[in-house]
């Protein structure tokens, strides 16, 4: 069933009796060609592109809860491709290009809004760093523009650019960045994958792998054994727990990242703004809530909730740059569990076990990567070779010294 304006009109005239469920609820089969573990954004996108772009058959997505109940429903919905390093920038730009055509591609309204992202600059050193980043982006063919204080003032008249403590000296803008209705990403990919024959099996937790002679034969689940020729793991947040079933230790710590939304306000924030002197970023949802966040809590956690010191820290950052927002009341706050990798960059690679593939380590940048992550992981699963834009995301880069460390923090996951 395709969605269209015509269809909406027709259904509204006929009592909305023609709508059907967006995806099936199938029983798991005894075996599949490809099993994707994890029904989040990345897993569903992988299944969608496997079926649609790579023409693979007999695919299942296994999800322990309900699809979209993990990090794809717990993020701050921002998309951008303003990265510095060569291993990252082409990948994230590929992702942004896929976002730009996504709604037409999977025929679902994901409310993709390219309202722009602006990184504020408060010091000379920061200006140098952002000019360098902007130039690196442009060398990769990505839009980046250094804005003057006057240009920023025209777009955000309520910003205090002359503040004595944190004067705004300019900003790096990526006008193609923006926000997406995050849940609709999961739903759109699920619906698209299902329409290409993918079985989406919810409430089906993987409890182990069946591995014989170095080859993966299938997965043990809460709904019984399911055989598979290839198994792709896309469970960022729980990667270490899942891969421990295959005897693997990962270069990952799981950390909790909190995010916040205020009560609904009249439009005040036209785009996404990051505060350069603290770690604070903010956008306004289409419902009017200010969506904002900052640092991770900084200790290993699987609790999906954080603690108050970080709440205070994030709100202090917000008050420093947007004091007017102090009048808004906080509506909701939540925590998501991040795969914090040892260099701040992800992994999309084969494992040492034949037939077992891994996608994870997204730190707190996984949402924007969803389409490219799915496309590159599908490429790896279907073609047995990394996608040209994901060749750097290897397991062995830590052993070989080929880290992709955007912030230059070293192997300290809570600093990335």
């Amino acid at each position, binding site marked *: 069933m395709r969605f269209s304006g015509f269809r909406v009109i027709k259904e509204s005239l006929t009592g909305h009796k023609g709508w059907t469920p967006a995806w099936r609820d199938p029983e798991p089969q005894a075996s599949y060609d490809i099993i994707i573990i994890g029904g989040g954004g990345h897993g569903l996108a992988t299944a969608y592109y496997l079926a649609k772009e790579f023409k693979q058959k007999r695919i299942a997505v296994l999800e322990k809860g309900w699809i979209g109940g993990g990090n794809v429903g717990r993020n701050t919905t921002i998309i951008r491709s303003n990265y510095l390093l060569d291993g990252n920038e082409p990948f994230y730009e590929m992702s942004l290009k896929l976002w730009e055509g996504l709604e037409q591609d999977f025929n679902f309204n994901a409310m993709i809004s390219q309202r722009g992202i602006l990184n504020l600059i408060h010091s000379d050193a920061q200006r140098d760093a952002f000019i360098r980043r902007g130039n690196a982006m442009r060398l990769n063919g990505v839009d980046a523009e250094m804005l003057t204080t006057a240009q920023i003032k025209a777009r955000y008249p309520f910003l205090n650019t002359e503040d004595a403590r944190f004067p705004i000296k300019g900003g790096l803008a990526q006008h193609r960045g923006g926000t997406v209705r995050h849940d609709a990403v999961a739903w759109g990919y699920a619906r698209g994958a299902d329409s290409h024959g993918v079985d989406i099996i919810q409430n089906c937790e993987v409890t182990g792998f069946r591995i014989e002679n170095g080859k993966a034969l299938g997965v043990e689940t809460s709904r019984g054994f399911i055989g598979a020729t290839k198994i792709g793991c896309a469970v960022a947040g729980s990667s270490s*727990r899942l891969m*421990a079933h295959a005897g693997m230790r990962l270069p990952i710590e799981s950390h909790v990242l909190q995010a916040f939304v205020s009560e609904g306000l009249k439009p005040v924030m036209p785009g996404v703004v990051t505060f350069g002197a603290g770690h604070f970023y903010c956008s306004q949802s289409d419902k009017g809530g200010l969506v904002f966040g900052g640092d991770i809590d900084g*200790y*290993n956690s699987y609790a999906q909730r954080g*603690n108050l*010191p970080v709440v205070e820290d994030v709100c202090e950052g917000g008050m420093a740059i947007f004091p007017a927002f102090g009048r808004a009341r906080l509506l909701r706050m939540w925590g998501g569990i991040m795969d914090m990798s040892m260099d701040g960059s992800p992994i999309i690679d084969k494992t040492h076990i034949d037939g077992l593939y891994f996608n994870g380590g997204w730190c707190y940048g996984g949402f924007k990567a969803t389409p490219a992550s799915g496309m590159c992981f599908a490429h790896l699963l279907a073609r047995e070779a990394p996608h040209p834009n994901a060749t750097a995301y290897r397991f062995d880069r*830590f052993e070989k010294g080929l880290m992709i460390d955007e912030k230059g923090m070293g192997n300290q996951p809570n600093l990335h």
Partner: protein
Amino acid sequence: MMINHPLLGPRDSAEFVYKGDVMLIDRPDPASETAAREFYAYGYLRDNPAGWHEELWFHEAGDRSWLVVTRNTLTHEIRDVKLARDVARSRGRST
């Protein structure tokens, strides 16, 4: 979270910096023939369990001591706190 410091009593976790899995105490022998492989695992690979976890916390805004905290990563409950120095000595480290 409150961390019950063995010397100072209960302290706000915001005074501390989290430094990672307690296995970091067990630094490999650089003279070992397999040192490169061992340092790779030491530097980069972690068990990262869901549940009880022994981990290092540095009292940066306090007495600068390093602690070994046994904490549940599913609930943030803290069960035990020791001085990292005592743990290191009990594991055979000289200092």
